């Protein structure tokens, strides 16, 4: 087996490199550099309790913009590749087994709660763990639960597209507002910082995270629906 030998050689090389890196690594004793700055100034500067949120939304906000772009490209790639031609769609209609009554009842009972929980997560992103990405994933999970309970459930595509484009556009617009009214692109301080620790605080961070949450949620739901295929 030549292939296995080559694979083994590659693996041992990688293992050697990893062992070399990990060999003389020791945990940090104290924060330093840019992390020290973020931790000491973050709360007072931006008014966000959750420093990870502060970094994701504001300090490294440009990265988040790029990340949302990658997600959008992946979602539209899935949609384009799995688009069905008319005759093809008619040929592959299959009877799927219906879910039992307990599952359908549970789905219709739980999915509003899950959507509400997702909204709670991205609205509280600056106070507790969570934020746009987690909230969006939770909302997509509610859509997934509906798909599991009703095999031929259909989403409304135009509503989905409108929400997605609107939130993406407004996200860039809020970033530009930060550029003109405050320190830089995606700066959150053009809105008042409010009282530290309440839900309407930290400037524009709740707004930005709500937009990110809507965008991520609709994109993941779109990926799921395209991969499920329209029955």
């Amino acid at each position, binding site marked *: 087996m030549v292939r296995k030998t080559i694979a083994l050689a590659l693996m041992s090389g990688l293992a050697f490199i990893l062992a070399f890196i990990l060999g003389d690594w020791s945990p940090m004793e104290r924060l330093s550099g840019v992390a020290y700055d973020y931790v000491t100034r973050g709360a007072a500067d931006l008014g966000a309790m*959750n420093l*990870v*949120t502060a970094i994701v939304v504001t300090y490294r906000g440009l990265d988040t913009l790029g990340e949302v772009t990658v997600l959008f490209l992946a979602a539209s790639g899935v949609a384009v590749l799995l688009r069905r031609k008319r005759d093809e769609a008619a040929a*592959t209609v*299959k009877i799927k087994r219906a879910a039992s009554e307990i599952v359908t009842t549970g789905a219709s009972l739980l999915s509003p709660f899950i959507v509400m929980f997702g909204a709670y*997560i991205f609205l509280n992103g600056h106070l507790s*763990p*969570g*934020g746009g*990405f*987690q909230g969006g*994933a*939770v909302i*997509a*999970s509610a859509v*997934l639960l509906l798909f599991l309970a009703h095999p031929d459930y259909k989403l409304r595509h135009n509503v989905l597209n409108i929400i997605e484009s609107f939130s993406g556009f407004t996200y860039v617009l809020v970033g530009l507002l930060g550029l003109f009214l405050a320190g830089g692109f995606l700066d959150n301080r053009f809105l008042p910082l409010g009282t530290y620790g309440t839900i309407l605080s930290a400037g524009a961070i709740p707004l930005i995270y709500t937009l990110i949450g809507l965008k991520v949620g609709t994109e*993941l739901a779109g*990926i*799921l629906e395209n*991969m*499920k*295929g329209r029955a």
Partner: protein
Amino acid sequence: MENILITLLSLIILVAALAAIYLRNMISAILASGLVSLFASILYLLMAAPDVAMTEAAIGAGLSTVIFLLAFKKTRDEEVENG
């Protein structure tokens, strides 16, 4: 306590990762990778990263398992149809 927790979870993650690669049955492999993601989420929580743990829990619990299952089903359905 925490050291015992981390050691045991690491062992289970390693075994589950090996199982995900070497199991013949694809559904079992997908389930094993879901197990890896579940215990990775607990490890993130132990390493004081609740944000990351929440992301891993929200995505690893349902979404990634279902995406793999859907892809597997799509490559299986047609095989039956086309003999």
